């Protein structure tokens, strides 16, 4: 078991730069998720780790082994594909044993290893079936088994659950985590689903347009996003953003959104934005709704989405539509409300670069 280092990875397709300046270290047994919108370069990055794409520049080290220019056959990685990619003409047993067969194991040894793995994943009774006879969840279990029989040096997941239904995802999530912990190798998991990233990862790498936007633990990214992009990408419902201005008041600086002003605690970098526009972000969980319309953004209630333990409510305000997390049982009935963001939870961003002003 080894650490995996990526140093300045870069991938160009013709004149298109898909990934650049990608630096990352994954520890033994660490579960790192690569998350971002489609086209951000996360799958390309994963394929460079797998050896299916060759890096244009940069280095990739598994421990002290330089694998940058090694083909996938010699990298000793496991990869779970989005479209599962089981071989339709082989039984589940032979699918799982294929890697061992290539590695030159004798038939009894192969099947013994397969049985052990199948036991762990509770798919023993599927071994004689063809992949086409299995459900989506079973197929993904088999694919997981196929990739883990060979004790990989690095475990890669390429959006393995994006074609599965929500309940199955929740069932498979802990399984993926347990299995990778059990194997104890570094894991890189690619997804476009921030919820998957939040729930499974030790650390999350958020990518935007071929670059790393931020790396951190789930709570760190949620509480302390480095940019408006990360702030709005992580967290459900999405962080609400407004166009605002920084204004000077008697006792310090305040942020003005529409006709409302909220004092903000002094931040080092904020003074230089005085009298200039700024982006203001606040999580829907940090906005309170009052019947008193004078103290906050005036919002006309549109509709509620009850979720059982809480409600997502939508309001039309002069600043656009705003989502607020309201208590269980909240029904707005189309009336007018005042929306008050908690001023300590305001996140301020540069309007041009989108970077956080701290």
């Amino acid at each position, binding site marked *: 078991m080894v650490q995996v280092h990526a140093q300045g990875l870069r991938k160009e397709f013709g004149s298109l730069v898909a990934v650049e300046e990608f630096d990352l270290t994954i520890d033994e047994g660490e579960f790192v998720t690569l998350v971002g919108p489609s086209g951000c370069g996360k799958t390309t990055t994963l394929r460079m780790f*797998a*050896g*299916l794409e060759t890096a244009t520049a940069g280095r990739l080290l598994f421990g002290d082994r330089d694998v940058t220019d090694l*083909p*996938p*056959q*010699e*990298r000793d*990685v*496991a*990869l779970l*594909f*989005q*479209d599962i*990619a*089981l*071989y*339709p*003409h082989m039984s589940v047993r032979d699918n799982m044993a*294929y*890697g061992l067969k*290539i*590695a030159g194991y004798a038939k009894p040894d192969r099947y013994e290893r397969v049985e052990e793995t199948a036991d762990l994943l509770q798919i023993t009774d599927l071994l004689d079936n063809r992949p086409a006879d299995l459900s989506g969840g079973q197929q993904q279990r088999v694919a997981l088994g*196929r*990739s883990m029989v*060979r004790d990989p040096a690095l475990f890669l997941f390429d959006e393995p659950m994006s074609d599965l239904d929500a309940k199955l995802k929740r069932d498979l999530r802990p399984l993926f985590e347990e299995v990778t912990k059990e194997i104890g190798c570094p894991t890189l998991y690619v997804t476009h689903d921030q919820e998957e990233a939040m729930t499974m990862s030790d650390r999350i790498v958020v990518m935007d347009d071929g670059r790393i936007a931020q790396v951190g633990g789930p709570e760190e990214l949620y509480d302390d996003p480095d940019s408006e992009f990360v702030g709005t990408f992580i967290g459900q419902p999405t962080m609400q953003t407004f166009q605002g201005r920084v204004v000077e008041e008697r006792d310090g600086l305040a942020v003005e959104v529409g006709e409302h002003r909220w004092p903000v605690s002094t931040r080092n970098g904020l003074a230089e934005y005085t009298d200039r526009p700024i982006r203001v972000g606040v999580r829907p969980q940090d906005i309170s709704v009052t019947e008193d319309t004078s103290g906050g953004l005036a919002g006309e209630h549109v509709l509620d989405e009850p979720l059982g333990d809480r409600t997502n409510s939508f309001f039309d305000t002069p600043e656009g539509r705003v989502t607020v997390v309201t208590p269980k049982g909240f029904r707005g009935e189309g009336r007018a409300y005042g929306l008050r963001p908690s001023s300590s939870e305001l996140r301020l961003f540069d309007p041009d670069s989108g970077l956080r002003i701290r």
Partner: protein
Amino acid sequence: MSTLDDDESGTGTATERRRGPGLTRRLSYPVRRSVLRLGTVGSALLLGFLMAFPLYWMAQNAFKTRLAINAGVSWLPTGDAFTLERFGIVNNGAVLTYITNSIIVTIGTVLLVVAVSLVAGYGLARYDFRGKVAFARFLLLGYLFSPIVLALPLYLIWDWTGLLNTHIGLILALSAVSMPFAVWLMWKYIQTIPQAMEESAWIAGAPRWRGFVDVVLPQTTPAIIANALFAFGLAWNDFTFAQILLPSNDATTFPPGILRLVNASFETGYGDFMAVGLLMTIPPLLFAFFLQSYLLKGFEIRAL
């Protein structure tokens, strides 16, 4: 509301709707069903008759004595009219040579077409190169030329390269004719096999050729069989190329051979040709019969 409903209790507007756009006149369901069935069965019978009658004609003449043939058509050759001696023609040395040549050329063509189409189809499906689509379109241009247009220049080239009157010469020519379709089919077929399957094999440690053999090849069986059938039919029944590229009687295949025999001999009767013709239709029939289910699968490609 089902428009197949044939109860007449509908209101005026419902009736109007039934006579809506495109339905100028509506028959009741049982009537429509009978008409449809009659049409289907009738056209199938007509087509079947048109295709089967020449075969029947050949078959019944193959089992008749020469006198009975001259006497005209009979339903089935029976009694004195029935004989198997027509089949004695296969003992004719020339006919045997023609059949042997046909078998060699056909097997050679099938093997070459299958092998080359696999490699070329894989290359087209998995590698990008400049002008790939233009190249693929160009492939199909070959079908715009009739065999005789191609065969004459081929004669000159084959003559010059010494391929005239050789099995390999005809195999090459026939393979070239089958190849555009075969490569096209294999290309489209391999495109339906997800690349991730191969990538998964590579990651498991399999070299590219091994991934091809273990993962791609077994899944292309329907396309291989479709190509083999197509090449078989083309090679077995080819007349033009064999006639032109194998001018020597010793080298030529059955179709031109038998024609030369017909033209050359007064001895050999009409019924003898029918007998040997019948024998020669049996292999492709069997070949097609046993592989037809695979053939249909081979053409079940959404993207073709």
